[in-house]
């Protein structure tokens, strides 16, 4: 065991952090945690390590630890865009929307070309009920994310969902279509498009999109949600057998509860 300790000391905090980063990327969270702890043991104010530790704590459902790490990181280096962003994100996920704004805005200032701080600011303003600001920010996030990637698809899906909640279903459908262009395999995008088309009264194409969503990898939108939507769509399309079949699958699928 002594040799291990010697080896760890020999590695130095930077190497531990690099190891932790690799473990994190490969979803070896336990190993990543050990490595990042080793890095912080030797260098308690190492900002990238503090941020990584916060991300690991978030995954472990320890928002208190995450926030503590991020606040330390920001105290050491207020110009760390990463620390500011993840602190804002941490507040956002804890529904502390007011508190989320300041670090997200700082992150945005520090990294004006990054779409993610703007995107989370948009969702924060949406949660706070400021529709005008949210719309403006969603648009900015979309503009900052022109590439066709799953990340930009995610931004477009959220933007489209927000537009749908405002009753602007046509614009919502447009965003969902762009999201599908960016990531044709996005289940969320196909599901949201199905909802938007349903709001537009196009049950037939909505059902097609819903069926397509069911075939895609399960990430955000659940099978239960899609089956429920399809049951309603087939009811509208006067196809009671299909409606019944999806309703039965909806009942059989695991469901979520909102509050």
């Amino acid at each position, binding site marked *: 065991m002594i040799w291990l300790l010697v080896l760890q000391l020999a590695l130095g905090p930077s190497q531990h952090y690099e190891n932790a980063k690799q473990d994190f990327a490969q979803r070896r969270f336990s190993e990543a945690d050990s490595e990042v702890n080793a890095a912080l043991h030797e260098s308690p104010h190492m900002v990238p390590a503090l941020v990584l530790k916060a991300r690991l704590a978030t995954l472990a459902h320890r928002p208190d630890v995450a926030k503590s790490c991020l606040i330390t990181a920001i105290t050491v280096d207020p110009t760390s865009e990463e620390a500011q962003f993840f602190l804002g994100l941490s507040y956002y996920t804890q529904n502390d929307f007011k508190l989320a704004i300041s670090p997200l805005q700082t992150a945005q200032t520090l990294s004006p070309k990054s779409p993610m701080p703007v995107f989370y600011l948009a969702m924060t303003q949406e949660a706070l009920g400021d529709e005008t600001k949210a719309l403006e920010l969603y648009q900015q996030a979309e503009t900052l994310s022109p590439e066709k990637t799953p990340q930009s698809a995610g931004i477009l899906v959220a933007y489209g969902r927000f537009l749908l909640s405002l009753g602007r279903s046509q614009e919502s459908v447009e965003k969902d279509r762009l999201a599908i262009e960016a990531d044709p395999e996005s289940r969320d995008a196909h599901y949201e498009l199905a909802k938007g088309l349903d709001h537009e009264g196009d049950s037939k194409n909505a059902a097609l999109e819903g069926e397509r969503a069911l075939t895609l990898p399960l990430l955000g939108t659940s099978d239960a949600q899609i089956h429920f939507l399809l049951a309603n769509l087939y009811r*509208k399309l006067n196809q009671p057998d299909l409606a019944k079949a999806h309703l039965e699958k909806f009942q059989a699928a695991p469901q979520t509860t909102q509050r």
Partner: protein
Amino acid sequence: MVEVRRRRFLVSVAACLTGLAVRRANPLGPTAKVGLSQATKLSSAAPVQSSSARTKLDDRKLDYDPSNAGSYWFSDFAGRSRFAYRTSNDFTGRKYFPQPMCGGVAAIDYNNDGLMDLFFTNGAKLPELEKTSPTYYNCLLHNNGDGTFEDVTAKAGLTGADLGYCFGVAAADYDNDGHQDLFICNAGRNALYHNNGDGTFTDVSAGSGLEHKPENVLSVGAAWFDYDNDGLLDLIVTNYTIWTPQTDKQCLKDDAREEYCSPTVYKSVASRLYRNLGHGRFEDATEASAIGKALGKGMGISIADFTGDGLMDVFIANDTEPNFLFVNQGNGVFRECGLEYGVAYNEEGNPVSGMGSDAKDFDNDGRVDIIYNDLAGQFFAILKNEGGGSFSDVTWSTNLGPLTRKFSGWSMGFIDYNNDGWKDIYSANGDVDNLTESSRQHDTMFENEGGKTFIDVTEKMGPDFAFAGYQRGSAFVDLNNDGFMDLVVTSLGQKPRILMNHALIKNHWMMFDLHGHKSNRDGIGATIKVTTQSGRTLYNHVTTSVGFMSSSDRRAHFGLGAETKVDHVEIRWPSGIVQRLEHPAIDRILNVEEPTHRPLGS
């Protein structure tokens, strides 16, 4: 002040004496309304009495001049009266699970003087669950008929000092003696108060059968209805969960700030159905009716005949559980059809935090629709009855979704506030918790545009209406018998608001005060179809169960818009008797007696 009142009284008397002449001079002015608010007794044998048929309402004049209202629809009249009631949930920092629910309201004419009075339930000291001081007493306010109310709680025997923490209230004449009684839902035992007819009530719970419920169950709402159409009102009670101060869970946000726990951390329970056996006795029909098979966290109850078979069905909004639609099979059994009929979940197939609910026909197509509210971000829902056992979620096509995304609603209901013949939507709002800047919320009024879409008209309702707080219970009631529905709303920690409707648009109206004979005396469950001279058809039914924890005016209200004549009215009583009234007078309250026989051709 006395002199001012006296002057107004004299003006009102003059208006009353001149009767129809005043009406001609000022067709629908406020003075004419006072003089013309007489009830007219109707039956199928004696269709419509002349407008000169005076009743005790004629000499009731309100010290209330709508012309002073300015441009707002509602003003709070509560400040004109001295009463101590505040909605008291003992909010002292420690957050006990039931605290967000407090302040049920009932509209009840307890002394049969033709003016609706008000009853409020109240909380208790926690964790003791006792009304340790008058702060927590329930409250009965007598309507003086002049815009003021007198606290008659103690005299009436309704303090509820022995009841602990009270939630909902349901008013109805359960024993058909002509006096409306009260049922109160509690954390402890539930209570049935019999109206003695002399201004007092007696707690007759013991031995009634209603005192029994599973141990430690929180009963939050109740509705009177006659599910077997035997002429005796039965009772359904929504239960929320099993809870005691000892089993109360403490939930922390970020391991620091205390917040109200989500209901998901508590068990689901069944609602309870009690069948009225007569003579003040009830039997628990929960299991026999199959109501007991459905476990949820019951909140608002709406009673209506959703299937058009003449039997009363039950919709229950559940908090974090699928909503229930209990369809009456006619043999004492109910079938839970929420999922099948499309009312159980939101658009995404998720259960939401269902709170208050109402069931009325919002698009005047002859079928009873459903609305319910929930928490911010979940969107209030409107479900259109398509017939044939199917409802469509029209939350988005009616624009209700976008209008409600910011609000956490509690009590709610359909109210045709401007008498245009289209039922609008009112919601009493306020967050569950007090942790954010948007926790205090104002109420909302969404105007029904031709049965197709809704628009937000809250701003027009006035500053008293738009008070930001933690609103909970609400009742719709015509307190001054002017044909325009008023609103009574409770808010946590506050004096209730008594929002008088200023009737800014002089639309016409009718109100039906039904008296059953073969059917239950309150006529609960009777459906009314009004056909105007132009052929417009309007629908309503008699129920007191509207919103959450509350009980509204049992008289069925119709706005008629600019229509000046009604061709006929068809009333379907729960007994099956169909009554037709030809060319009834409008702009008045019509007292209608159920015929003792089934008219020919019905």
